[in-house]
């Protein structure tokens, strides 16, 4: 219901495992404000609870992020989506896909789950209006067969929100 299952994916490389374990330990010591990692025994898929920041349009609301890690994480970006219902936001599609450059072309292996979360919260917090992207329906229709947002050719034209 949410996204292509990771079963079609290769399991994590040893390097990816080491790195994720390290990230998990760091997260537990020092979680990013407003986020809660839901503990599972699956290192390759993290589900993270997001709380809208106080004083923003999303204050008091709670959403869930799903983070799937590829075999060669962190060389490759993880796939990050909101589990529907996704927040109403000009860069978030109703199927949970997020238009955010660091998740795709601007990914760098020096980024972490924690830094991604902070970017997503800042994107939510700076939203001027609760609305869907203009091309929401067309895009979501194109993704119906469970396409990953990483396969989308994104256009990043707005750096304000």
């Amino acid at each position, binding site marked *: 219901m949410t996204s292509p299952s990771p079963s079609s994916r290769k399991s994590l490389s*040893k*390097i990816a495992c080491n790195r994720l374990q*390290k990230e998990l330990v760091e997260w537990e010591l020092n979680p990013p404000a407003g986020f809660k990692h839901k503990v599972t025994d699956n290192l390759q898929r993290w589900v993270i609870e997001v709380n809208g920041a106080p004083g923003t349009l999303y204050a008091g609301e709670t959403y869930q992020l799903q983070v799937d890690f590829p075999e060669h994480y962190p060389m490759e970006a993880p796939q990050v989506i909101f589990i529907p219902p996704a927040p109403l936001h000009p860069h978030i599609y109703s199927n949970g896909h997020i238009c955010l450059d660091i998740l795709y072309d601007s990914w760098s292996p*020096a980024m972490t789950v924690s830094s991604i979360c902070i970017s997503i919260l800042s994107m939510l917090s700076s939203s001027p209006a609760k609305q869907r992207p203009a091309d929401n329906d067309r895009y979501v229709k194109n993704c119906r067969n469970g396409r990953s947002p990483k396969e989308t050719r994104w256009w990043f034209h707005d750096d304000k929100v």
Partner: protein
Amino acid sequence: MAEEEVVAEVEAVEAVYGDDCVVLEKYPPHLHIHMKPRTADVSSQQFVEATIGIRASSKYPGEPPSISIVDSKGLDEQRQKQLLSIVYDNAAELSSCFMLVALCEAAVEKLSSMNHPDGNCPLCLYPLVNEDDGLPFMKLMSCFHCFHCECIIRWWNWIRTRKEADDANASRSSTSQKDMEDQTGRSEMIDEDMGKCPVCRKLFLAKDIEHVLDLVGTHSDVNSAETVVLDEHNLLQSDSEKIRRQKFESILKVQQENSGLIEPKKHEVLLPGMFLPRPVESTSTSTDKETKEEGNNNQAVDSQGTQGGSSNRPSTSKHKKFNGRMHTQRGRNSGKHVRQWIRKEDGPTS
């Protein structure tokens, strides 16, 4: 009166720091001073630097100046704070004295004591300097960000591979699609000889990183260095390597028996730049042996040349032609004769 003294002090700072001191305002003083640790005459031994901003009001020296870090390299937030607080502590101690030079000295002193890499490798998140494993690390000269050599080379090879794949795709796809890529800046492709720091995206020269390749081994792939070791082991134990070694040993034996060089077979005439098609493997050690062997054969060719005169000419030209054909087949990578050739030969045998 006081103003003159302050201006004289600013000139003193200028005299000490030369080009590293930028005076934005003589009075009230506003300076930017570029500071390096004292120990950093050798650039490879320098891990931190900072540009400190000092701004005083017209009440200076009665009121201490405000200090800021305008720019820095190799200093995380915590170390930047430490640097600032040392300078402020000094300012408090020297309250209502002329202190500009002393504050700069204090900052340089602190920088010198912090001139070592700190924290984790940004790629694997394990400590950069660890006495237990002693992994080598390296520094990008443009931004002073440090990484384990193994980690940054893995990343470097990864983006290189990706770029090659992208290039292949781009050449296949239509021009309109290419235009679109350019417009979106999607690939934002880095020049052949440039890279971007994974932490700050500052451009660096490929050669900064390539000298490290030797340390790690150019064959290391994204999985791990372990597999490379395994592969090497397999190669050394492979049939083709055994056959090659036997062949070499038998030639060596004959040479020893004849107490000198033996005449090579006619079809194995070698000239520099030519490579014989026979099953060999790609470990670097064996290529070394290969060249040695080749050298021997070349000498043999020379001696034969003086004996037989024109007899080997026809075969030489034949080989030249053959070699030329291989060039066109191999196309753009013709620079790497040996490796390319070996790979071709390895395919069917292994």
